[in-house]
């Protein structure tokens, strides 16, 4: 409540509200009646008029009150004079506010700094966008090396303080035999040296292992050469070791052997340079 109905006393705020036309309808009616019968209230309103004029001239009112004072207070010649005298007193005795030239460099309300901050924010934004775009581009470039190094088998970490001889019975699991990834191998035994009877290999794949029984066992190293029947060299091995001097094993990739007749020559790398020739067919 801004007034006490029992004593009909209005607060200073109520008087100010009356002058600015901010009382409610009920309060306004009560105030009007009191103003016509209460000399004390009238004197207070007159003083409040001076204060309001001073505040308006000194720009000490809020924006809303400033507008209300213009609309509802300065509506009579007497009040306009009151306001004019308030202005005159202010000009006469109060210091005239001159626009002070500030020497502070960091006045954030100065236009220069506003523009500078705006430019800085723009630069930061552009830099961030550029950087993010660039990082994405780099992230999507495929690696220059098309293959990845095979992962090296890593040993199980062993605790440094683990005892060498555990007290618990050692449990050893037999490693499961991994599936063989070796290419399929065809074995061919070469025993005859003539062309009449020679073994035939049907659609060999993977590798062909020739097992050769030497007619004259001779220890030492051999050189093996495979030719077509028209003496076109196909495959050769410079050094073959005979395990016991009577047998040789030669492994040839099946891919180098097309269907046809071949001969394979084994030459002893000793002093006599003896040769043994065998024939085989690939179908």
């Amino acid at each position: 409540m801004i007034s006490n109905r029992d004593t009909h006393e209005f607060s200073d705020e109520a008087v100010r509200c009356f002058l600015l036309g901010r009382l409610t309808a009920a309060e306004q009616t009560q105030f009007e009646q009191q103003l016509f019968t209460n000399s004390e209230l009238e004197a207070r309103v007159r003083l409040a008029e001076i204060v309001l004029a001073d505040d308006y001239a000194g720009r000490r009112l809020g924006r809303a009150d400033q507008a209300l004072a213009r609309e509802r207070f300065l509506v009579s010649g007497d009040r306009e004079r009151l306001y004019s005298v308030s202005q005159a007193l202010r000009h006469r005795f109060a210091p005239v506010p001159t626009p002070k030239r500030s020497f502070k460099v960091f006045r954030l309300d100065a236009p220069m700094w506003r523009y500078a901050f705006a430019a800085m924010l723009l630069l930061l934004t552009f830099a961030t966008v550029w950087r993010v775009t660039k990082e994405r581009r780099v992230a999507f470039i495929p690696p220059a090396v098309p293959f990845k190094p095979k992962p090296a088998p890593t040993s199980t970490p062993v605790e440094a303080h683990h005892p060498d001889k555990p007290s618990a019975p050692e449990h050893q699991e037999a490693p499961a035999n991994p599936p063989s990834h070796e290419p399929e191998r065809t074995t061919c035994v070469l025993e005859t040296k003539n062309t009449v009877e020679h073994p035939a290999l049907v659609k060999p794949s993977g590798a062909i292992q020739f097992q050769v029984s030497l007619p004259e066992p001779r220890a030492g190293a051999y050189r093996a050469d495979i030719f077509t029947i028209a003496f076109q060299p196909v495959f050769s091995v410079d050094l073959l070791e005979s395990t016991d001097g009577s047998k040789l094993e030669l492994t040839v990739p099946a891919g180098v052997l097309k269907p046809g007749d071949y001969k394979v020559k084994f030459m002893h790398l000793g002093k006599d340079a003896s040769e043994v020739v065998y024939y085989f067919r690939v179908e």
Partner: protein
Amino acid sequence: MCGAQGAMIQVIPPQRFQMTTARKLRELDQDDFDRLLRWLDPNRERAGVLYEKIRWRLIAILAARGCAAAEELADETIDRVSRRVADIQDTYVGDPALYFLGVMNNVHHEFLKRPTTPRLVPTAPDTNTNEQIHTCLDRCLDRLTPHARDLIERYYAEDKQAKINLRRTIARQLGVSASNLRLRALRVRGKLQECINHCLDGHVNERDRKATA
């Protein structure tokens, strides 16, 4: 406190109460006006004071209601009451001032029913008027007692926080509370205003007289 303990801050000199043009009673003839004053108070001086107070109240109320033509409606109210005084003065019981309030309500209601007219934007006082105000201010400041002048000069000195601090200092020096200091200063300011109004009216009357001559 702002309460003035019923102090009368505006003392209207008798010579001012002459129904000048400043009072803007347009169609009221002197007989009606004299009858009105007698109805208000048999003593003409007191009646004049009462008349001014009633007019001021009417304007204050109409302004608070948001009426842009507060002065015109107040004068219209006084005009109507003056015409009715001859009929009611023998039978009316109570404070005559309250009769003005009732008539004012009627006048205001009628005003609100009228088609709205564009309101003139108040213009700033011209240079001549400003000069007159400053001349009258100097004149009226000189008429104040040294103590009152010193008080008003210091009361209106400084701005913002410095003003608040200065007023605290003045109150401490005078040994009074801040509200008491405010009351004293405003009373001096009221007298100053009245003096300036009188001075300005004199300027206006003089200007009118020169224009007529």
